[in-house]
């Protein structure tokens, strides 16, 4: 698999979760790559707890993509 295809696979996984309503709430970088934590809030009428998802991003381009999302989100909120 080319590096680009690996990146696309990881990017799609991130985008799919974001599309489902998850938001990135945390990250941790370690030897294996970047661990990304995402949270999905329940609908207002629902009573259950938030749902969490976790991704391990291996490729540099995917880690850069997610970094851009985080930076852009902070700028929007600034």
């Amino acid at each position, binding site marked *: 698999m*080319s*590096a*680009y295809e690996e990146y696309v696979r990881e990017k799609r996984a991130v985008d799919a979760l974001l599309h489902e309503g998850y938001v*990135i*709430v*945390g*990250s*941790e970088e370690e030897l294996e790559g970047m*661990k*990304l*934590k995402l*949270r999905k809030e329940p609908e207002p009428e629902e009573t259950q707890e938030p749902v*969490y998802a*976790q991704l391990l991003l291996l490729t540099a381009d995917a880690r*850069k993509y997610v*970094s*851009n999302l*985080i*930076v*852009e*989100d*902070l*700028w929007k909120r600034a």
Partner: protein
Amino acid sequence: MADLRTKLAGISSPNPFWLASAPPTNTGYQVQRAFEAGWGGAVWKTLGDPIINTSSRFAAVHFNGQRVAGFNNIELITDRPLEVNLKEIYETKKRFPNHAVVVSLMVEPKREKWHEIVKKVEAVGVDGLELNFGCPHGMAERGMGSASGQQPDLVEMQTMWAKEAAQTPVIVKLTPNITDITVVARHAVMGGADAISLINTINSLAGVDIHTWNTVPHVGGKGAHGGYCGPAVKPIALSMVAECAKDPKVSVPISGIGGISSWQDTVEFMLMGATNVQICTAAMHHGFRIVEEMIDGLNNYLDDKGIAAASDLVGQTVPKYSTWGELDLNYQVVARIDTETCINCNKCHIACEDTSHQCIDRLTDANGKAYLKVREEDCVGCNLCAIVCPVDGVIDMVEIQSRHAPMTWNDRQKALARMNSESSETEAV
């Protein structure tokens, strides 16, 4: 005709080209010949207690047909008595009053020694002094040269001693044989330096003769490390000049030295913060008249660019020289191969396949003709293919517009830290 005049810490010169303190500036005869050829200034070969030199002093590194890619020497400071040098310096300055005559000095790290030599040298009418804290060989074994230059406190103290007696500008010449040259540069400034010059030569051994097993050069079968200079050291020198130029605590003019062989090299050093340049190896290789081409080239360059004065170049690139953490991670270039002019030597393919990111494919078109194509989505823009390509202009590195705004590593780290600090979920990741 552009104005090529420069002024380094008050020392005026008709152009930025000075001969560095070295064998070419050993005598009045040589310096006067250099001025006749067009050099704007000269730093006289280092004066101090006269030494005794060895026979067999220089060696060169030739690389792939280029003579003198690097140059190594084990020659020491002047071997002539001070009075002889002073007489010739006086005569030279009298004959060339508008040229810069700066004298390099090296004495033991003692206050009275610095006072004595500074006063004697200034008495003959020099334009400035350069303190040699850089020579890495021979004199360093006696506690001078780079042995002094590697100790920031000694640099500061000796600069101060020289300044106590000096009436003319004092330039401190720095050794590159140190981890961080800005530390020594700052101490030179704290000692009162009016300018700094860099780099002196780099510790080196030019080679070993694989048949005799002697070092190159050798003195009767024995060798010692020397000082390396010439084109091979230019990138090292340029980086060190840049580091000093962007350091706000090194706020004095810089005389750039190290592998400068052409007017183009000179422009690079001036853009990177050097007020002028000092040259040795190119003159030793090609003779003093090499300066004619440098003067013409610099003048034409300035005229072509519509720049009135060479001094307008000084430091223009310094704001562009930052740290890795401030580079834009979203900037991207990719390689594009012009198949019309490509000679299909496959060097780019081999370089990419073996040592980079495996993104240049060897393909065959409908007519059975082989061609090379970059898979741009996999190309990281490392430049290697363009570097190894033997035909100019065949491989272009083309900028790809990013969908994201510029983001540096420092931006990223700050954003991640902020997100993690804002999130109560961080520990759970």
